[in-house]
């Protein structure tokens, strides 16, 4: 395997370096974190196995983004998929994990299959497997070929990145994997799929037609809104975070689509701006989502549950983890000057510029609606973030599990601390990062260092951070100087004295108002059973899984039941089958090849 790598060399251009840097930046703190986190599994599962698989997983991801030809790419892509599959089924004694793992494996193979077909098509048109040569000969790809490659890439990379409707494995696999693995899968692996999409669409295909770029935009917006609405009704923290990852992927995809719309109209600098917005959000999402998954992992480590309805009041017992999670929450809900805001502002700006600069009205209309949906998604993200943070860490414990907790080891704290620091730094110093991204991408993508739109690189966010810090430092002593008597009492229960943790709002209750509007999309159903007591039971299912996946599975089962009849158990018949198949293949190659 290594000899292949050395024969063909590795791809080092700015895009690959950016993604490799993102992966490494997140992987190091997560590796430190895993050292402590894996203590939980001592005795029940093999710790060494997990560490080795995690390392293989990280290395294969780095190799995917720096591989230079399609063969190496596919090989490491499969290594990445399989190693992450083994991480998903790490807790193999739980049957649910095996089920999710198998679903993940199937989706992964669908993805791999479509990617192989895509690379085969690229080979057909350009006659090369080397990425640079494919880029050079991209003019040979016909219009029809572009559409085919686009669809194959969208399904292939989309199944991995979790575009609706191919997202269903994501909220199943991520909660099952151990938290260090799910942090990497959600934070980084999805981004590797986006790397592939960006590589293929920007460098292999010579300009995407307008309607295909709008398809990207619409799929992105639909993914974003559908995923965040589904995130809102979850009570499992990791499931909520997994859906929220799909939401962010949708936002990034919509921005990539926007970039092609700009390119179609020859607005190169704006196209570059939205590409950079997408890339910057990729980096930021990798950082804050890994942080949030890591803190969800620390909750799981400390309490043994990830059901928010059983948690609450963790602050008193795990202060550091709470503050780290709080920084992650601020970041994901796009509060300035943290990094989530920095990239979301760029995305929103690119959408506004898109609507205002695109000459065709109908295109502008589609962009406007996509932008509004992404803004709604932003509001939903705030809702979901406060739900996951507030219910889990604040208030008082809702069950015995949240009351007696294990202490989390130092290494986990260090890992989360590094990620939290990155969240703050990438936000406050975002103009520097955006600037350098703009420069490096413009050389790569357009060929020259073009004039950068001034709108993107002003230092507003750093200035705001400065003013905010100054104000805070001035206000703090001013307010402290007043009579500083602070005493602690019980929560005021309006006259009621025997309050327990179970009387607080639960995770389900918090997101109840919006289920009245969106229950259909969220697959939410509530049943009330009245006996001598009243039971309320609510269920959430994924609409696409129930309405699209399960019928397909049923149909396949039915078909398989029919096909089984040709198994006669006679070798002569099987040889005949092989002969017919060979003939058909030859005919196909002769006719269409």
């Amino acid at each position, binding site marked *: 395997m290594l000899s292949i790598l050395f024969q063909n060399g590795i791809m080092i251009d700015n895009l690959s370096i950016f993604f490799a840097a993102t992966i490494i930046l997140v992987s190091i703190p997560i590796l430190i974190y895993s050292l402590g986190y894996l203590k939980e599994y001592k005795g029940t599962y093999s710790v060494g196995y997990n560490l080795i698989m995690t390392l293989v997983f990280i290395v294969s991801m780095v190799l995917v983004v720096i591989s230079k030809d399609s063969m190496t790419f596919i090989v490491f892509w499969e290594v990445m998929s399989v190693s992450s599959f083994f991480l998903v089924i790490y807790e193999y004694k739980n049957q649910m994990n095996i089920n999710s793992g198998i679903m993940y494996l199937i989706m992964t193979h669908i993805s791999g299959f479509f990617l192989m077909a895509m690379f085969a098509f690229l080979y057909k048109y350009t006659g090369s497997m080397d990425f640079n040569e494919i880029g050079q000969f991209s003019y040979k790809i016909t219009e029809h070929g572009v559409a085919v490659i686009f669809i194959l890439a969208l399904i292939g990379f989309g199944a991995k990145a979790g575009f609706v409707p191919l997202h269903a494995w994501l909220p199943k696999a991520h909660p099952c994997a151990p938290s260090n693995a799910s942090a990497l899968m959600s934070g980084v692996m999805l981004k590797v799929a986006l790397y592939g999409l960006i590589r293929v669409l920007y460098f292999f295909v010579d300009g995407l037609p307008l309607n295909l770029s709008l398809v990207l935009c619409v799929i992105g917006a639909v993914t974003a809104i559908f995923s965040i609405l589904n995130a809102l009704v979850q009570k499992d923290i990791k499931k909520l975070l997994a859906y929220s990852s799909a939401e962010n992927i949708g936002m990034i995809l919509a921005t990539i689509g926007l970039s092609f719309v700009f390119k179609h109209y020859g607005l190169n600098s704006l196209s570059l701006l939205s590409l950079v917005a997408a890339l910057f959000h990729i980096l930021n999402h990798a950082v804050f989502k890994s942080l949030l998954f890591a803190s969800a992992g620390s909750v799981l480590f400390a309490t043994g549950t990830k059901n928010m309805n059983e948690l609450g009041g963790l602050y008193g017992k795990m202060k550091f983890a709470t503050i780290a999670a709080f920084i992650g929450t601020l970041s994901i809900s796009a*509060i300035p000057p943290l990094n989530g805001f920095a990239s979301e502002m760029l995305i929103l700006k690119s959408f506004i510029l898109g609507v205002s600069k695109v000459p065709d009205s109908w295109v502008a209309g589609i962009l406007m609606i996509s*932008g509004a949906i992404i*803004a709604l998604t932003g509001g939903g993200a705030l809702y979901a973030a406060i739900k996951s943070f507030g219910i889990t860490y604040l208030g008082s414990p809702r069950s015995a599990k949240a009351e007696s907790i294990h202490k989390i080891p130092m290494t986990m704290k260090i890992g989360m601390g590094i990620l939290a620091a990155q969240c703050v730094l990438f936000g406050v110093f975002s103009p520097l990062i955006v600037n350098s991204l703009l420069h490096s991408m413009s050389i790569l993508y357009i060929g020259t260092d073009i004039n950068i739109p001034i709108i993107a690189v002003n230092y507003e966010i750093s200035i705001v951070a400065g003013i905010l810090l100054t104000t805070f430092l001035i206000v703090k002593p001013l307010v402290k100087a007043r009579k500083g008597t602070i005493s602690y009492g019980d*929560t005021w229960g309006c006259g009621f004295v025997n309050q327990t943790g179970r009387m607080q709002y639960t995770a389900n209750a918090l997101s109840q*108002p919006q289920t009245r509007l969106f229950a259909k999309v969220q697959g939410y159903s509530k049943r009330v059973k009245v006996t001598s007591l009243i039971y309320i039971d609510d269920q959430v299912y994924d609409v696409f899984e129930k309405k699209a996946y399960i019928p397909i599975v049923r149909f396949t089962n039915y078909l398989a039941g029919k096909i089984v009849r040709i198994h006669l158990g006679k070798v002569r018949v099987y040889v005949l089958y092989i002969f017919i198949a060979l003939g058909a293949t030859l005919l196909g190659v002769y006719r269409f090849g």
Partner: protein
Amino acid sequence: MNYYLFNILQGIILILLSPIFSGILKKMKAFMRGYKGPGVFQVYYDLVKLFNKETIRSGKSSFITEIGPLLAISISLTCAFMIPVFFCGASSLVGNLIVIVFLLGGIKLFNTLFGLDSSSTFGGMGTSRELFLSMLAEPVMFLIIMFLYFQYETFNIFEISAKNSLAISLSVGDILAFVSFFIVLVVENARLPIDNPETHLELTMIHEAMVLDLSGRDLALVELASMIKFTIFIAMIVNIFFPIGIATSLSLLLIAEAAILFLAKVFIILFVIAIIEVLIAKSRLFRAPDLIAVSFSLIIAAISFSRFIN
């Protein structure tokens, strides 16, 4: 340098005046209902009283209650320095509308966390409702910023009011956008018919429910922060849509004129809010999305006027 000094000065004036605007609003409502009501300075006395009182926190509360009020007030003060009040001289350093709106979202975030922090049931209820409404209001705000970008080709609120101050008449789009912004103001600042700021311990409340367990200094800071936020919204709506007479250069006469005009415009906005609050009862929570939908349609229409029809 003088420009920036004056920016800071007008920010300070806005902050100092914000409680009195709440007092005036209360006085107006009292007048219309036919009773005398407290004096306009009562709000200051209340704040001072709260500051001097003992602060009692819930024993279950966390660092959110400790630093939250401080951060909320810092955020609102920061925003006050980033908007024009009666002077909109060259200021490209600050004033990006997206930054201001998201920064004000920080106050909302802290308020909602206060609700969950003290582990009271009321708090959770307020949090849930506030988040529900603000989630729906988010796209409207985004579209308003988009509309303003079409009209004035900038995200900077100082430049917007400088450009608009020369305009003699309002376009149709402007009027629609104004109404839409006004509805967002009502929603974001917990006014009637979304939330009744005068009631306590009703099952209907939103903002008061979240800050129910705060007292003394914490409550004073949070209340002041919401007052400043309310004033910032009013200053924004005034200076974006009716900046006529705003001072664009530093001259004493111009600034005096602009200050008087600004106060007059704020009084008109407050008067409109007072009329609405006196005439309308609080609507059900699930009627609120209808109002936001109205606002959404209006801003879509406004964008259509400025972007697609010309």
